[in-house]
């Protein structure tokens, strides 16, 4: 079937809830209204109110409840309506979900997924546009998955729900519905922790993920650059090997991410290249990122996140050394 990213999310939820009755969905408006983005559409009708639960307006309750359910044998998929509302539940993620395996020396684990749309570029309100995968990626025990295509979205979400440990599933809402692609109707997994090479090239490696994939690919096409484009897909744990091998081949690298520049995922990509491929570098690794400010509102939003011209500039700098 041809599906958008958000339709792929919905399809994955239908698939896994039908296959595994331990899977429950909870969040604000996920049941009766079918979710703020229709990601949980028709789940209530198909699986009933015991498995599709509208929660109070409390992220603490949603993530905390999911953690408890997970520890007791369920496979909860919690929805946070916008990533900007996850911080209230930071404690549940850091102190409970992600460390329960460690804390109980393996006696308990938390097989749960927290889904949330993230990112700017949709003229949303404050608290709706964050791209904080770097911050969450810093939490040991928490996996951070950011799909960029409908096909990957379904496969990664199925892998995430089946994973024995907590996964933060960040959905790029800017491209939620911007394109369709063929998504198999059957059950398939895209493994966590593995990057995808979206395009092979010899001259420069460009690393991006999630909402930054379309502008990155656009920049490569526009610039007519023989770039190797890597989609991390999982920010944590990071598939550094794929990046390092590519950089060993090209000698140059540009990292593109939407989140703030400082202490961001891009810094870590650079560090891993330094660790393992320094002597292959022909040029300093370039970063194209958001700025160290909150995402601006409305009219200034387009200036915030990387657009193809900025990405192209960075590629040219990397190639000019």
């Amino acid at each position, binding site marked *: 079937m041809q599906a*958008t990213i*958000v339709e792929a999310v919905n399809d994955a939820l239908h698939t896994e809830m039908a296959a595994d009755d331990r899977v429950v969905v909870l969040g604000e408006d996920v049941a009766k209204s079918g979710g*703020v*983005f*229709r990601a949980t*559409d028709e789940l209530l009708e198909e699986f009933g109110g015991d498995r599709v639960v509208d929660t109070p307006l409390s992220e603490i309750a949603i993530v905390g409840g999911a953690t408890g359910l997970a520890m007791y044998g369920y496979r909860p998929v919690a929805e946070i309506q916008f990533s900007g509302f996850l911080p209230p539940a930071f404690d549940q993620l850091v102190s409970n979900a992600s460390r329960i395996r460690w804390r109980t020396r393996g006696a308990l684990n938390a097989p749960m997924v927290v889904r949330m*749309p993230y990112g700017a*570029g*949709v*003229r*949303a309100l404050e608290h*709706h546009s964050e791209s904080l995968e770097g911050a969450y990626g810093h939490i040991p025990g928490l996996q951070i998955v950011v799909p960029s295509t409908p096909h990957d979205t379904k496969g990664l979400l199925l892998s995430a729900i089946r994973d024995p440990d907590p996964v933060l599933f960040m959905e*790029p*809402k*800017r*491209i*939620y*519905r*911007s*394109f369709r692609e063929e998504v198999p109707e059957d059950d398939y997994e895209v493994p966590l922790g593995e990057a995808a090479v979206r395009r092979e090239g010899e001259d420069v490696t460009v690393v991006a993920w999630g909402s930054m994939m379309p502008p990155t690919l656009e920049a490569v096409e526009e610039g007519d650059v023989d770039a190797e484009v890597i989609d991390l897909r999982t920010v944590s744990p990071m598939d550094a090997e794929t990046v390092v091998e590519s950089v060993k081949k090209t*000698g140059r690298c540009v990292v593109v991410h939407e989140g703030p520049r400082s202490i961001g995922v891009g810094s870590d990509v650079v560090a891993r290249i330094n660790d393992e491929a*320094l*002597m*292959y*570098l*022909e*040029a300093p690794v370039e970063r*194209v990122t958001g*700025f*160290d*400010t909150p995402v*601006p509102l*409305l*009219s*200034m*939003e*387009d*200036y915030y996140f990387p*657009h193809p*011209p*900025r990405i192209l*500039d*960075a590629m*040219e*700098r990397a190639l*000019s*050394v």
Partner: protein
Amino acid sequence: MAERTFELPDLGEGIAEGELVSWLVAPGEHVEEDQTIAEVETDKALVEVPSPYEGTVSELHYEEGEMVPVDSVVVTFDVDGDDGGADSEGTGGSDESRSTTGDGAETTPSAAGDAETSESGPSGGDEQAVPQSRVFAAPTTRTLARELGVDLAAVVGSDGGGRVTEADVREAADAGDSDGGIEGVDSAGESVDASASDSGGASTSAGPTDVTGGEPAVTERASADAVPVTVEGDGADRKRTLAMPATRRLAEEAGVDIDDVPASEERDGEAFVTPEDVRAYLESRRSGDGTVGSDTATAVAGSSAGGNGATAGGGNDTTAGGGGGTTAGGATSGERVPYRGVRQTIGEQMARSKYTAPHVSHHDEFDAADLVAVRGELAEVAEREGVKLTYMPFVIRAITTALQEFPYLNSSLDEEAGEIVLHDEYNVGIAVATDAGLMVPVVKNADRKGLKELAADVRDLAERARNREISPSEMQGGTFTVTNIGVIGGEFSSPIINHPEAAIFAMGPIRKRPWVVDDEVVARETMRFSMSVDHRLVDGADAARFSNRVKELLANPALLLLD
């Protein structure tokens, strides 16, 4: 009157399309700015779409129930009083506006007011300055604009973000002058660029319009940094060189010191070496080099194989240097060769020996006429049996015989135990020059072997050492070492003892020299040789006595047959 199209705006949250549920206006109808003209349903909600213009609907491009992609044109308006056109157009516009207001009678007063004020500001041409054609203003500002009769679309915000403030509206109302608005556009645009480049460093491409402006700046800076400084040959011995890691790796792998590579560029006032510089440097090294190196290699290999002794080079400075040349395989003067591998092992071993054992060297010469005659006779016999008999087996045989009489020459010092170990095995190392450097395989139990067996052992060991097929264990356990410098040349040397042995014997060349026989000087085959002994274990007198015994045996080779 001007025609304006209206594209379905981004409805929020990345929605790419929406279903046009209902039109709230019809063609020919006059609408005000912000009046709801349509309802579009997305996955998320029913969204009311406001009109961005005041004017008349001239065409609706979609039917109710159709899916409308974001950014596609949904409505075409005829907009009143666009001052971008000629006067006649303006007049026509007002005419049409009057006629349309006739249709929508209720809107007449405000329409008239807007028609008047819209002349005061440009509603076209400013769309490039802000990302969207929408006007951003607080509700109170919009109210004020209506009260003052100011067209908000014609006012450009002064806060740099495109937001129109109440002050902007009042200013526009006071000025009634479109030029002010246009200047505002420019200055706002500039301030956006400036702030973006401040916070973003080199990434100045804040928006589509200034991308082209950003690129030349980058190019200029890059070219300013990379001042070509074609400095040939001055690279040697720089103290500091800038280069990317991959370039440094390239240099290291080629065994080149990056400080020696002439730099083609300069960055921050320092020499900057590129990969091309390294390659060019290597190329310049190669040209005019090779011949010397390969000749040397041929000479060594040839002499080694040439039969006069399967061993070449030896445990002394001169031959070690020669071995180094061979090792580098195409080394050129001026080049810096990494000190590692076999070369480093040899060096460490030699230094250890030299710094550990106080060396004393002893040189002598003997009449080798009989040795030459005997070897000549036996070599013919041996050759029929497939054995190549060189002088080396004779020397080994003489030495093992002498060693049994002078046990301190076949000893080593156990420093930890404080004991001198007098070996009861006679394992003679033979120094072999190989492409990788000096190697010393050991002929085990040389005292128990006949000349033919020694010849076969020497040949086998030397060949396998040169082919790098020899195992480390075959180079261990030596108690004394023989080296042959004669095959390459030179008369005497100061060989370095193969630690922890007590002595080393270096054969010089056998050749005809003036020699006194019966008070007459005659031309005679003689051999010169050198020895070094560890003075901790062996005194000069013992070394001389030992050497006398070796001389005696070699000068009268028949004596070798006694034992």
